[in-house]
């Protein structure tokens, strides 16, 4: 705008005309409302696993997509997984053992959350194996789920380290994906028992951490065939409608062009549907609905 005014001035436009134009521009500025940010309605943008990190290098940190003005509102990384279990990593601990945990991104999300009140901060997920691959333990389905819950909770607490690394979004997610792989066979009842074992262990541990699930509507339906209902479990869906690369970025779980496709009997407005993931280019992005009663640590 300054450039345009200068050019007009050089051409010798009458001062009155400049004044009228300036008034019109100011008037337009006051009558056209700024586009509402998703954050204004409690939907915070975030990221997971290996990327992306914040767009800037100092706090408060910004989301590197969806235009300007969006804060880095959360980070969910792989705190561990059955696929990481080995003789040198018997508990399947994530940090330092996986591409999908980035401590800098977690710290950035926490800084925004604790110092500025932006977003939900860091959280973690466990890559869950089904009953067909028990890492050599030979446990029954339910016991195998419980064992993974034990490992996952231990991994969470190991990283938390009495508050050295905070995890304010206190949902321990089970990453359930790829029917036919990672021990997920065709027995939906047995698969569900693994989930139940994990859920029970984390809940009964009573450490203020609640269980959740990351999956897609399709995969959850196939893996848990006949045993899909999870009305009281936090959900994070990776299945979206219409577009993988939504433009503009979604401002809630639903718009005219895309919506988050949840599962297990829950929908966008259900009490425990917390997050969705979509892709933009080669990176995954997430959105967190903080209108839901999330188990959040704020101090």
């Amino acid at each position, binding site marked *: 705008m300054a450039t345009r005014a200068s050019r007009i001035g050089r051409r010798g436009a009458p001062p009155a005309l400049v004044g009228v134009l300036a008034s019109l521009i100011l008037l337009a500025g006051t009558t056209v409302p700024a586009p509402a940010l998703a954050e204004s309605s409690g939907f915070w943008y975030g990221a997971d*696993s290996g990327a992306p990190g914040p767009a800037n290098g100092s706090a408060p940190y910004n989301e590197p997509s969806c235009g300007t003005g969006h804060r880095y509102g959360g980070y969910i990384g792989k705190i561990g*997984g059955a696929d*990481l279990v080995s003789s040198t990593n018997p508990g399947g601990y994530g940090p330092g053992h996986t591409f*999908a945990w980035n401590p800098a991104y977690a710290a950035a999300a926490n800084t925004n959350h604790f110092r500025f009140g932006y977003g939900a901060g860091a959280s973690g997920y466990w890559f869950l194996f089904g009953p067909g691959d028990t890492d*050599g333990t030979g446990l029954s389905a339910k016991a195998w789920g419980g064992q993974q819950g034990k490992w996952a909770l231990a991994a969470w607490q190991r990283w938390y380290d009495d508050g050295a690394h905070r995890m304010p979004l206190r949902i321990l997610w089970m990453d359930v994906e*790829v029917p036919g792989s990672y021990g997920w066979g065709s027995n939906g009842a047995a698969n569900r028992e693994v989930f139940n074992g994990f859920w029970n262990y984390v809940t009964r541990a009573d450490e203020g951490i609640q269980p959740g699930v990351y999956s897609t509507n399709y995969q959850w339906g196939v893996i848990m065939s006949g045993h899909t209902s999870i009305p009281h479990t936090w959900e994070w869906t990776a299945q979206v409608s219409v577009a993988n690369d939504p433009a503009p970025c979604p401002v809630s779980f639903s718009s005219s062009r895309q919506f988050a496709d949840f599962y297990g009997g829950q929908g966008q407005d259900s009490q425990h549907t917390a997050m969705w993931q979509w892709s933009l280019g080669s990176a995954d992005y997430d959105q967190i609905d903080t209108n839901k009663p999330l188990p959040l640590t704020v101090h």
Partner: protein
Amino acid sequence: MRTKRTAGRFAAVAAGIIAVASAAGVVSATALARTGGSHAARTAATHHACQAATLRLRSAGTDTGAGTTVLTIMITNRSAAACSLQGYPGLRLARPDGSAAPARIGPGRGALFAGMSPREVRLRPGAQASFFLVYRDFNPRTGRPGAPIAALRVRLLGVPGQFTVPARFAPFGPLSVSPVRAGAGRE
């Protein structure tokens, strides 16, 4: 433990599907008819390039998180002499019936590939190198995994021939690959 488990998974696939793979699930070093001419031609005489028959390629396992998987391929020099590898591997995907599956595979970008550039990797006898692939596990629009893949066909810069590495996965969309790097460590 993880590596053994993964190799075991692949073994069943390899047995009936990958004709050139050994029962142990390791790569066939059989040099196929094509010699990778352009790659070979670019191999400078100053490098003691590895020979296909002395290299062993196998999957070192996967690391999956929230819809994305990293698949690491380990390369072992089984000869008594040191040799060199360099650059990005040439990759093709093979379906369970052995036919080639269409795929977009390109050099990886972003945080996971930060600091990685093609460079010469010197392999002493018994030493290991590796590269890794990154792919999505499913179509976000449908929630379904991609088409099943049973093996990777690998060409290494300056090494005549092609390797077949049993690897059962179902990627969706483009795949990103790292250059060959020293060691068999994870990404």
